[in-house]
């Protein structure tokens, strides 16, 4: 993919990595009038937001399979729909698979299950409304650069005050409740509100998806609110599935970037970031080619950016120590199954199959699965988020055949026994779990692919194979994400910026880190 204009010898900005954040960043910078070169190591753009063929004739989103966090105005601003983004499904429903009993259907307004008590039904409405209020109050922080603490700059002070005011505006009762539950675990919160184990399991799932937590870990209400706030900030489309998979989103982003004047080079892996007189001044490619630029913006994870591409010699030792301490071991695997028919989920309607399916029948089930992950093991009863994207988008599989895409939660990067020998057993465990809710599934399998965090690390060059580039937890969010001293997208080295999921507000195909970072670059200047 080559931009239309002749490539200048020197760019205002070089962006490392054409994942969705790198693409958003490049597009935003180009729209801001900068000359931009976007470098990607792989043969195609997209990073982990990629659609690829895993079995002949079957295509799947290799990483995230649902889009729900990307702000509507970002999609609008970059005119992604003009650049080819189409929707296979929007406002998808959530259905919790419950083994023998009928599944539980969740929509924003109501939870539906024959076994649900009237009290739970009523509590559900109140709970979702309250969580939505909290999410709306927290939503504005996503689009902002996290303020520095102790800074004397008015912008930082105002940002802190604004955050406080957003919460204050909730009113005394809600504010107290938010300040209380903010530090809680989602298990206790749901126990306070509901009776049904199935309902609690389904609601608790979103608090731990992609996190290194179990439902009983303090901080999981925060991760839940975080997700809800990001969704709230994104707009009202809910869970969505781009047509032709997540890769199509990135193709649209790439077109938007190129249309704005950015140049994209694939198969151009960066070897290191060039520094002169304590200022980033370009990059050297693995081929040896050197490209000069005013600013270098890296969408690679912070460990890769600082420890490998930049090199510790350009950084203070204490800063390096902090980077080294970032917890970035992935805990989610991806499972892709090519099927010769629609998956036989028990008692799941055709409509429900168009939405997302959860395998998280109770909080205890989730917690037990997490227990194993703490010790470098995987659970025989894994937790999953399942979609059958081919139901909404026939382009992904041959006619009448289907693709099942599952995120398997609590699959440790550092498996004690090593992935080499464990892989077949893990696959068996995952298929057994699916078979329990979809009897006969095994008989429909045409082909199968598993990506463990180790595979994700290798394929997408993410240290630890963590889709957020680093755990989302109290001590790794906002002004301490990825580390203090680099939380405003600026690195300690002038001219070097970060724009990936390792920054505020994290990963999950949001694009916000890329956009916020680009805005910091456009603002110019360095630390005051």
């Amino acid at each position, binding site marked *: 993919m080559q931009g239309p204009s002749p490539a200048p010898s020197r760019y205002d900005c070089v962006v490392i990595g054409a994942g969705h954040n790198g693409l958003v960043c490049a597009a935003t910078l180009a729209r801001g009038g900068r000359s931009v070169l976007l470098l990607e190591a792989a043969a195609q753009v997209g990073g982990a937001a990629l659609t690829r063929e895993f079995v002949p004739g079957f295509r799947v989103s290799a990483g995230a399979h649902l889009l729900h966090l990307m702000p509507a105005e970002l999609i609008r601003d970059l005119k992604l729909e003009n650049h080819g983004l189409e929707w296979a499904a929007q406002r998808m429903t959530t259905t919790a698979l419950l083994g023998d009993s009928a599944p539980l259907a969740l929509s924003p307004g109501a939870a539906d299950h024959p076994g649900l008590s009237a009290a739970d039904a009523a509590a559900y409405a109140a709970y979702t409304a309250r969580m939505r209020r909290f999410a709306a109050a927290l939503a504005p922080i996503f689009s902002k650069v996290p303020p*520095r*603490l*102790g800074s004397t700059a008015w912008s930082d002070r105002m940002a802190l005050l604004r955050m406080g005011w957003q919460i204050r505006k909730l009113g005394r009762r809600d504010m*107290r409740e938010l*300040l209380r539950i903010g530090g809680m675990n989602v298990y*206790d919160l749901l126990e306070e509100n509901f009776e049904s184990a199935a309902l609690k399991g389904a609601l608790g799932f979103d608090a731990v998806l992609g996190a290194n937590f179990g439902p009983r870990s*303090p*901080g999981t209400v925060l991760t839940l609110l975080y997700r809800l706030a990001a969704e709230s900030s994104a707009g009202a489309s809910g869970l969505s599935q781009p047509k032709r998979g997540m890769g199509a989103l990135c193709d649209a982003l790439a077109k938007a970037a190129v249309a704005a004047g950015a140049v994209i080079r694939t198969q151009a892996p960066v070897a290191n970031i060039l520094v002169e007189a304590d200022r980033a001044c370009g990059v050297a490619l693995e081929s040896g080619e050197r490209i000069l630029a005013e600013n270098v913006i890296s969408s690679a994870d912070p460990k890769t950016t600082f420890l490998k591409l930049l090199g510790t010699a350009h950084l203070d030792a204490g800063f390096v120590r902090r980077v080294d301490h970032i917890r970035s071991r992935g805990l989610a695997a991806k499972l892709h199954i090519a099927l010769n028919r629609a998956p036989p989920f028990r008692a799941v309607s055709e409509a429900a199959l168009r939405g997302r399916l959860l395998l998280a029948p109770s909080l205890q089930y989730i917690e037990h699965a997490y227990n194993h992950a703490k010790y470098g093991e995987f659970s025989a009863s894994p937790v999953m988020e399942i979609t059958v994207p081919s139901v909404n988008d026939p382009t992904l599989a041959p006619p009448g055949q289907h693709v099942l895409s599952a995120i398997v939660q609590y699959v440790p990067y550092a498996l004690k026994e090593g992935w080499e020998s464990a892989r077949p057993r893990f696959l068996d465990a995952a298929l057994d779990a699916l078979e329990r809710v979809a009897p006969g599934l095994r008989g429909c399998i045409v082909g199968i692919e598993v990506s463990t965090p180790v595979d994700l690390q290798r394929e997408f060059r993410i240290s630890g194979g963590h889709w957020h580039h680093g755990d989302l937890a109290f*001590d790794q969010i906002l*002004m301490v994400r990825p580390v203090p001293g680099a939380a405003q997208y600026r690195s300690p080295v002038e001219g070097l910026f970060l724009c990936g999921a390792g920054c505020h507000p994290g990963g999950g195909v949001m694009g916000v880190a890329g956009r916020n970072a680009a805005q910091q670059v456009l603002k110019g200047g360095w630390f005051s």
Partner: protein
Amino acid sequence: MLQPAQDFDAIIVGAGHNGLVAGCYLSRSGLKVLILERQPYIGGAAVSRRLYQDFTYSNCSYVCSLLRPEIMRTLELPKYGLQIIPYEGGCTMMRDGGHLALYDNHDALRREIARHSKRDAEAYDRYSRDVMRQCKFIKPLLMREPPDPTSFKPRDIQELLYLGRRFHSMGEARMYDTLRFWTMSAADFLDEYFESEIVKAHFAGSSIIGTALGPRSPGSAYVLLHHYMGDIDDTVGAWGFARGGMGAVSNALGASFMASGGTIRSAAPVAQIRVKNGRACGVVLEGGEEVRARLVISNLDVRRTFLKTMDAKDLPDDFLRQVRNFKIRGSSGKLNIALDGLPRFPSIPEGSPTTRGDMHVTDTIEMMERAYDDWKDGRWSRAPYIDMLIPSQIDPTMAPDGKHYMSVFVQYCPYQLADGEWTQAKRQAFGDTVINTIAQHSPNFKELILHAEIRTPWDIENEVGLTEGNIFQGELTMDQLLFNRPVPGFAQYRGPVKGMYMCGSSTHPGGGVMGAPGANAARAVLRDLKLAH
């Protein structure tokens, strides 16, 4: 002060250490104070009891570490007989026969840690520094009333500004460190300093004692500072045994209280706190006797206070809902053991003073976390974390000559078992688990046992009155600290009814034999009465 219809200015329900501390302060300010205690002895969970021959058991709390020095000084506790004997060390023993000892002497400690990792021996200094920095930040907050962040009252705003300024004065880098410290898990925090499993496990121990968290639960790191709270006060022997057992703390408080004119009635269980015209006006004892007072201060935990000792109609619904949501799960068991002699611990070198401090049994943080997993599932830990002491080595009043008393604190043990109620057989099985665990490290331990008192959270609730047997009168998690403790909007020691106060560990800053909640509650009372404090 006293109005004619009243028997007392203030009644304190419960003669636990916080009730006694509050009583002392109020009595010293000239109020006529009555403390009512259900048991025939005072102290609540800070007691010394003779349950077997001439052995004295500190049968609940067992260490004097956090008692605020300003309280000891003001209430003249040394004069009233309190004597603290410092620990001489401490250690963690591993199943493979290895151990890590903690020595007071810095060089001995460095060489000891260096046996496991030379790097950790020096990283220890950075670790101590960082935790001490946090202690310095938190210390003044212990003796203050937490501000209500939703309030516009000048006092609350002033307090919030004070907190903000204090935080700000640390400078940018330390502010981030502080944010992280208060929200991290102990395991993650320790990983940033140490490489040796036993070093990490040893320090992680203090993060789980009494909590319903595991070492990998976020929010467990800050508990690590308890170990340093004493040092920051420059108080020699901050961690120590109370001579005569923990009852000595309560007895000194009781003596100080009575010397200042206070009245204690033991074996006088309170059935109800009476409210008239929206004001607390006294209590009714279980026998039906009514005692009137201008103020009632409850030293009971909030669940017990408001759900069992008050009438729901006297309380706002919203408040009651919050109280019901207050997390107070018990997680600890305790064995008190009379021994026929001193048990041998072959992994500890001959002559080492570490047995005259707190001895622990665990191997790794993973082992502790697995112990926690058992608790989450409603089982006692199959391989529990143990914190044990033999105070009779230093304090001869605790056991007859040549014999010893051993206090064994056990983490984790649930209040409610997944397989039904606690029974005598289950209690015995729990005790056996603990005894067998210790016996793995001490070959002659079992044969020395003369008597063992086994206490589960269920027993602690039934005897001491702590709901669900939670030793801190409520879990010390982020959602139940500072202005959230015990419940949002009521963190300033004042109950939802006029003239009614809370002074137990359910309030800020929480549990441990610290006395700060009692002192802070007394200060709130005196401020409301516009009396000097």
